[in-house]
């Protein structure tokens, strides 16, 4: 039986994180009252003209450089012509034969252990374009059009057909999203549609060079669905091959309820977009100096961060993954380490305590304490001023207040007892009151250590410096 190999290429539309639209100064904020963020330009009123948002250009360059693209010094906008109610001008301003970025790459680390391999994905191009509006069909018998999104700047990233499985496609999408989010060009928010994906899928018998007929999967709104849809589509195409049914070039959608793809339109119905250079915008020229200036501010990629955390900070790969789950958390962790915190301890504390209080929205995150507060708190534990258990209590009181850890310690009366003389007095009292247990411990029943620690803690209201307490007990009972 013939074995087939899937061939997959992906197109990702990512919204650039500008405050205003690509060609006018309307806000790009999500969720506003329909058509409240519009002007003659993004409504496509007669006579209105586009003027390019330079910040969008900077973000597009940044996105391109983040996946090793070459940035064109001269690129050009083009009109993509088609009629649809959510497209007010009857054309979309996009880029066609001269996109702003080309020839990038993204390597995917696939599999584990002996099955691990690297998939090189070539990025053919990245081009800037404007988003369309949205047709709403939930308001009675008429459809209404909301043009708030019309003119929002997007960057479309197109790969070569280099992916060979649904898992690779999923990994590519997660990696690209991470890179964009860390580069601060996109908020990675799939629910609000600011990161969207189309997949081109074909299959061919293993060993055959020539590509099979390609099917485009469109409008799939989660990574999980993309993977499921690709798997289902590969299966469908294999079935076609086996039964001799012809695979036609078409656009298909995903029905999650049935777990199958379905035809949206065939190639015969495909539009002729009649691309031509946008006469309302001069060619986009960026100088090498501008490109280098953007390159200089490019942040470390999440993958590089993870490996640096593991190799030079000595934390586990798992912890590194958790800490790089969001750029603001990674930045928080790094700031704490830079300010003198022990990487391992900061990592543990963040994972154990801080993360559950963190809320993220897009590229923004609310972290309930500052790196400086964390460093101070960990320092108190390090010096023995407070116990690890107390640190958690202090953190709970500290979060969201901006107070210094020391102030909270004082307020809670949690200063650790590190007065060796006083501890000695307490331990002696316990030994005197429990001679039997003292004898047993001296005799080697180390399990009783906890009994003496516990008694001292009880006496001190839990404030005894545990390390010092341990030392005192051992010394008084002559345990080595």
């Amino acid at each position, binding site marked *: 039986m013939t074995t087939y190999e899937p061939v997959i290429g992906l197109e990702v539309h990512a919204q650039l994180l500008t405050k205003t639209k690509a060609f006018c100064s309307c806000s790009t904020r999500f969720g506003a009252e329909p058509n409240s963020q519009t002007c003659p330009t993004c409504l496509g009123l007669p006579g209105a003209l586009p*003027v390019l948002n330079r910040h969008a250009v900077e973000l597009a360059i940044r996105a391109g450089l983040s996946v090793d693209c070459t940035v064109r010094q001269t690129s050009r906008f083009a009109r993509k012509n088609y009629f649809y109610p959510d497209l*007010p001008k009857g054309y979309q301003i996009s880029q066609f034969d001269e996109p702003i970025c080309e020839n990038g790459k993204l390597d995917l680390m696939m599999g584990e252990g002996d099955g691990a391999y690297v998939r090189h994905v070539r990025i053919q191009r990245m081009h800037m374009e404007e988003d369309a509006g949205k047709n709403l069909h939930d308001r009675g018998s008429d459809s209404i059009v909301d043009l708030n999104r019309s003119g929002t700047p997007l960057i479309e990233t197109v790969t070569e057909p280099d992916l060979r499985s649904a898992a690779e496609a999923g990994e590519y999408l997660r990696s690209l999203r991470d890179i964009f989010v860390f580069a601060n060009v996109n908020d990675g928010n799939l629910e609000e549609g600011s990161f969207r994906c189309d997949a081109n899928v074909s299959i061919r018998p293993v060993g055959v060079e020539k590509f099979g007929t390609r099917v485009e999967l469109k409008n799939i709104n989660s990574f999980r669905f993309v993977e499921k849809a690709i798997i289902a589509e590969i299966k469908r195409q294999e079935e076609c091959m086996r039964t001799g049914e012809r695979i036609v070039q078409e656009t298909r959608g995903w029905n999650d309820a049935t777990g199958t793809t379905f035809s949206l339109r065939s190639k015969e119905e495909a539009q002729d977009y*009649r691309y031509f250079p946008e*006469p309302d915008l001069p060619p986009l020229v960026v100088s090498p100096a501008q490109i280098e200036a953007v390159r200089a501010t490019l942040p470390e990629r999440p993958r590089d961060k993870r490996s640096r955390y593991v190799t030079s900070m000595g934390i586990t790969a798992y912890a590194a993954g958790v800490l790089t789950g969001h750029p603001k958390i990674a930045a928080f962790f790094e700031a704490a380490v830079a300010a003198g915190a022990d990487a391992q301890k900061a990592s543990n504390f963040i994972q154990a305590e801080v993360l559950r209080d963190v809320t993220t929205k897009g590229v923004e995150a609310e972290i309930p304490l500052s790196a400086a507060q964390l460093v101070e708190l960990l320092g108190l534990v390090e010096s023995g001023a407070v116990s690890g258990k107390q640190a958690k209590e202090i953190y709970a009181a500290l979060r969201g207040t901006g107070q210094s850890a020391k102030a909270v310690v004082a307020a809670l009366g949690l200063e650790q007892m590190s007065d060796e003389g006083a501890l000695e007095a307490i331990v002696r009292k316990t030994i005197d009151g429990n001679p039997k247990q003292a004898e047993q411990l001296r005799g080697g029943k180390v399990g009783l250590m906890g009994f003496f620690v516990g008694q001292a803690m009880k006496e001190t209201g839990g404030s005894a410096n545990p390390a010092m307490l341990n030392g005192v007990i051992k010394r008084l009972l002559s345990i080595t």
Partner: protein
Amino acid sequence: MTVSESLDSIVRIAESVRSGGCSAEAIARETLSRVEAREPSVRAFLHVDHEGFVAAARAVDAKRARGEELGLLAGVPIAIKDALCMKGVPTTAASRILEGYKPVYDATVVARLRAADATLVGKTNLDEFAMGSSNENSAFAPVHNPWDLSRAPGGSSGGSAAAVSSRMCLGSLGSDTGGSIRQPASFCGIVGVKPTYGRVSRYGLIAFASSLDQVGPFATDVRGAARMLRVLAGHDPHDATSLDAPVDDYEAACDRPVAGLRVGIPREYFGPGLDPEVDMAVRRAISCLEQYGCTVKPVSMPHTKYAVATYYVLATAEASSNLARFDGVRFGLRKEPDHDLRSMYGATRDAGFGPEVKRRILLGTFVLSSGFYDAYYLKAQKVRTLITRDFEAAFQEVDVLCAPTAPTTAFRLGEKTHDPLAMYLSDIDTLPASLAGIPALSVPVGLSANGLPIGLQVMAPHLHEARAFAVAAACERHDALHVGAPAAFP
């Protein structure tokens, strides 16, 4: 000086209003009485904004009464081609598809006129979406040439030209894509200026062909047009193609001597098809320039003959896309024979667009279609570059180029409406400058034996409008070239 006497030049009106010699309201009233008397025979306007016009005049007078300095066009009645948006005033581009449409914003040029204290009379007729050369493609009514009411005023800015020619107002705005200011200026015996592409903002001009469209003034005299352009020109942050270059004092340029200026005569403009009377009048004007000390030099611009074909590929391509927004969804006409999107698009555009607009949308759609793009659109872009290079080469040798504005005088209404190609050829002399994006103007230099005006076209290098104004003003000063107002509309 009576109000009526002051109504003979833009500069004179503005200066008398600025100095208090005459109130803007009196001028507005006189203008409206002229419109009432003359408009029924000329039909230049699609909309006269009685209230807004008089209110603007009163505001100018009030401003003066407060002791504030008035702008360069204080109290000057100016008409606006109906392809330009005026906030709250019906703006149709002479198309059924925009009937009843009122823009929510002013075009930049409209705002600049207002800022200069001009008073805006109303909106003038044009060929639908500025597509035409006779104004007969207006969806509403044809305009009549004030020199002979049975003739076309030219187009597409025919209403703006006829309004000025009949002295209903002394200045107006037009738009020129392939000759739509210059050719009607020539037909109507007035001055019309197409500035350098990018010199004047297009924001608020309903686009026909974006890479060619340019707004410019009509006036009864060169100095008036110069003053208007001074107000209109300059960078606009709302138009990415507008040029950020200093604006010259065009009015001062009108007094500049032309002696020593090298005048090029492109031989390709004097070929077959040129009316002998036009030929003679243009040559006479050129010899007058020689009398002023210009040196005259024949030049050749070999790619001129491709201008018509190039233009009709590029302009229609852009138009097919620019007119896509008239889809019945957000504004203007909507026809819904069935409760279905596709039929709504089809029915709306079928009912809303006239035959010439449809012809051009079809042409433009065709030349951009997959499989034809390279042969038509791309090829035309290359030829456009060659035409531009012809001009660059010519301007190495001469300072300005002088040629006829149109091959004939005004033709009769109905004469060419059944022959689109013959109609297209009436723009043959104006298309090259449009394709090259250079400034060009038309100045009246004589009348034909049957009393129809003839225009001289003066073309200058990029951003050298001042030079064209100097040459045009010299022609205007020469007694032998005097044209004046049509007898019926003094």
